[in-house]
């Protein structure tokens, strides 16, 4: 089995023909390379004709055992029961299943969420609003942090669900899910956590944080794209969003994507074991990147919380008066891949809902940069960015003086 040895090994795929130009990849939150150890385990499931888990022949039994193994591994990552894991095709689908699925079965017609959730949570809520539900979008402070007491104040007798993310993908802020969970539990309201950004990077256990539903993404933990999971506590009443042949306990029909699910299981195991050491390594690189950028770009400001209040692999900043698009394109010409932190923002050019929620001024709304580090990030990649970015910003300022 291929065993990349942490920081010294090349990123998977980087030795290909396209790698003639040195590439710096700092968009792990956008897409992560799949760990070669995960690919190695997936390969026989793609090539070897391992069966449909629903089949009665022996290949089906083998498939079912692999599926249950993956279920156990994914559950273990967040201290949860394997039986509660429902595999989906994405974290977006898992978020939809959590919100629509609970809403469908609930008596109450009210939801509480935050203003900085992922678009899949927000749009699932908007969809319920269209159909007569009330949704309270709790605001955040300047760091993007939800106040648990504000969530508690928003709770009503007819509140069916509270949904607050564990960490924000755009500004890196860790949310106080444990406190929110405690307050929701006191009122008997189910608590959903979108843990896509935090899983494997920050400590997270469903019982300790009073979580009743939890969303996970495969690719965000170096597993293959095309798999996600929703864990639900046995007490949660849920209705399926996709109906059919009754796979995944009837909560998510459709033949399981076994290769991807097996890959997600291996990825969950690896990140559970290696995550803490990886987080420490990336935190040091991240701190060097942030300190260096804020030192070199005097007008730039960190977005989101500082230090241990944010995801260890996440650096985000606004550069007032300079468009993020322009910076990202210039960085790309220099072989550096980063992002604005929000796909929504990237497609419409509109300021993201997260930046609006943390009260960035108009001149800062277009300048958000997001660097996310990962398993194969090296110190030299950080140096390349520190060398390149000040010149890019100066050049763009000269081209478009305010």
């Amino acid at each position, binding site marked *: 089995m291929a065993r990349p040895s942490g920081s010294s090994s090349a990123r998977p795929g980087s030795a290909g023909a396209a790698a003639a130009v040195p590439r710096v990849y700092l968009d792990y939150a956008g897409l992560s390379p799949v760990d070669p150890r995960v690919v190695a385990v997936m390969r026989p499931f793609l090539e070897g004709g391992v069966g449909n888990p629903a089949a009665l022949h022996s290949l089906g039994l083998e498939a079912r055992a692999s599926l249950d193994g993956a279920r156990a591994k994914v559950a273990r990552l967040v201290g949860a029961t394997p039986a509660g894991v429902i595999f989906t095709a994405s974290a977006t689908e898992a978020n939809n299943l959590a919100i629509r699925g609970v809403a469908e079965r609930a008596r109450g017609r009210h939801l509480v969420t935050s203003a900085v959730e992922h*678009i899949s949570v*927000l749009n699932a809520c*908007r969809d319920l609003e*269209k159909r007569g539900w009330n949704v309270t979008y709790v605001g955040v402070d300047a760091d993007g942090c939800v106040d648990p007491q504000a969530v508690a104040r928003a709770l009503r007798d007819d509140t069916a669900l509270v949904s607050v993310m564990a960490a924000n993908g755009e500004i890196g802020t860790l949310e106080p899910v444990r406190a929110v969970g405690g307050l929701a539990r006191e009122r008997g309201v189910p608590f959903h956590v979108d843990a896509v950004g935090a899983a494997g990077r920050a400590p997270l256990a469903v019982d300790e944080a009073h979580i009743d539903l939890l969303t996970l993404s495969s690719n965000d933990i170096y597993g293959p794209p095309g798999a996600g999971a929703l864990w639900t506590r046995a007490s949660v009443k849920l209705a399926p969003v996709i109906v059919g042949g009754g796979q995944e306990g009837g909560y998510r029909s459709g033949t399981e994507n076994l290769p991807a699910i097996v890959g997600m299981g291996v990825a969950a195991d690896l990140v559970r074991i290696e995550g803490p050491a990886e987080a420490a390594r990336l935190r040091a690189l991240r701190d060097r990147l942030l300190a260096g950028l804020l030192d070199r770009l005097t007008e730039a400001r960190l977005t989101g919380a500082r230090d241990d209040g944010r995801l260890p692999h996440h650096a985000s900043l606004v550069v007032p008066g300079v468009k993020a698009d322009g910076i990202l394109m210039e960085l790309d010409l220099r072989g550096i891949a980063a992002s604005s932190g929000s796909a929504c923002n990237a497609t*419409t*050019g*509109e*300021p993201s809902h997260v930046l609006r929620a943390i009260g960035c001024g108009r001149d800062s709304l277009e300048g958000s940069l997001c660097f996310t580090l990962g398993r194969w990030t090296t110190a030299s990649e950080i140096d390349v960015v520190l060398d390149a970015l000040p010149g890019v910003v100066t050049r763009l300022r000269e081209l478009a003086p305010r």
Partner: protein
Amino acid sequence: MPVADLKLDCVGLFCPMPVLKTREAMRRLEPGQILEMMSDDPASEADVRSWTTRTGNDLMEIDRNGATFRFLIRKAR
């Protein structure tokens, strides 16, 4: 009442699609022409206001009929 030169139906779609499709539709208009866009995404009112303010296009009217918004936007340039 102003007559729209182009109509765009975004009912059923969610952010960012109404704004994205509005932007594409506006490219097909001449300055001074009017786009009518329908949307039932509760977020679209804030999104369209923000987009028109930022781009300098004229948000002439917002009507609301039940859950559906009707926006009239005049192309500025």
